[in-house]
């Protein structure tokens, strides 16, 4: 009987063991989206291959070679957008349709030209996509605005200093301005020359005493 009890215990524990493994396998979750490019190679890409595309560069491209992607929200997009642009809001990049869109673009060797309010916002999307392994997006160097019911896009120069800071600062350095009062007119008063009447010095009398 003792022997039987022993086998029972073994089989129960074995079943539990198997159950744990099976449950573990079933609940094994594979992350849907994984960054395939690490930060260092992304930085390298940023430094070596400039992801920025100017609007002049865009014009030079064949219109079939790229697709414009508006990364602003759908609300902003509906107010106004560049002609032919497709709206993929930044926070919706990981939605399956959009991921498939970028995948297809990569397969077709087309460039996804991203633009947003300014290049800064497009950079966020660019970096997400690049790190996910899509190497074809570019950032369009424009600023977009919606004012007076008109959608305006204008070129911006990225990282260009407005001024030559070192020299500008020197020229602006504090100069304590001491107010200089300017007399209106100064007229010199001429004085009559002094007449000096020399008075003859009296001769010193000879010392009275003496040897």
């Amino acid at each position: 009987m003792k022997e039987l009890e022993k086998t029972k215990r073994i089989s129960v524990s074995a079943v539990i063991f198997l159950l744990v493994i099976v449950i573990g396998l079933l609940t094994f979750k594979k992350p849907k989206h994984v960054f395939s490019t690490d930060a260092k190679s992304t930085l390298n890409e940023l430094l070596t291959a400039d992801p920025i595309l100017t609007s002049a560069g865009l014009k030079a491209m064949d219109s079939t070679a790229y697709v414009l992607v508006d990364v602003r929200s759908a609300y902003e997009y509906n107010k106004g957008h560049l002609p032919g642009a497709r709206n993929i809001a930044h926070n919706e990049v990981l939605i399956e349709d959009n991921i498939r869109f970028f995948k297809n673009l990569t397969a077709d060797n087309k460039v996804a030209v991203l633009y947003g309010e300014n290049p800064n916002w497009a950079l966020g999307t660019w970096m997400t996509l690049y790190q996910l392994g899509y190497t074809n997006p570019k950032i369009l160097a424009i600023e977009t605005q919606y004012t007076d019911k008109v959608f305006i896009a204008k070129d911006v120069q990225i990282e260009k200093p407005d001024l030559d800071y070192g020299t500008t600062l020197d020229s602006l350095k504090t100069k304590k301005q001491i107010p200089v009062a300017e007399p209106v007119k100064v007229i010199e008063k001429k004085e009559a020359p002094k007449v000096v009447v020399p008075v003859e010095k009296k001769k010193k009398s000879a010392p009275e005493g003496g040897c």
Partner: protein
Amino acid sequence: MSKNYKLKRLSTRRYQMLAAILILLAAGLVLLPDYQKHEGIEPQLFINKAMSNERFISTDIVADKIINKDPSFVLVDVRSEAEFAKFSLPNAINIPLDKFLSEEADNVINQEIVDVVLFSNDNFMANEAWLLGNRLGYTNLYLMKGGLNEWFNTIISPKMPEETMPREAFELYNQRKAAGLYFGVGSIEVPAVKTIVKTEPVKTPVKAPVKVVPEEKKKKSAPEGGC
């Protein structure tokens, strides 16, 4: 006796069977797809962070912190060394973008207590650095909004508000002017006082010739004694 023996044999076989199953399962683990690990944060979190506006710190706040010698933040200039040598903000540390992920830079940027404020000429380069840092899970990274261009437009040479603007605009302007003085620009405006010398028709003074009458020196009394 024979019954006992059978049971024993069965139990030993059971052990072997169990062992075989476990070995098979272990072998199955090898066949599992590689769990792709990636450094830093997950894509969705990265997207959320890249959307937020919380990263921006205005130039006014930065100026205020510099003036008050706030010890809780570090300024990091991500421009090139040449640009840094020409001009930078006081007490800023230069970490060019290409060295941003190096180990020395890590000591400065990967902070938990001190805030790290990144800046460049405008936002773009600093934003690149900010995004890369966030990808790696660094906390406490911030951006100076508008970068040095904005710094010059606000602190160094602020625009005079128009007369119709609210009082706050004037207060801000004065504050910026005062901050500018701290950074060694601007002028202390002292209204110049003009002294006007009245001109009168010149009268030719008629003066009597001055006679210089020297006082007669008293004769020294002759020394009384003698040799």
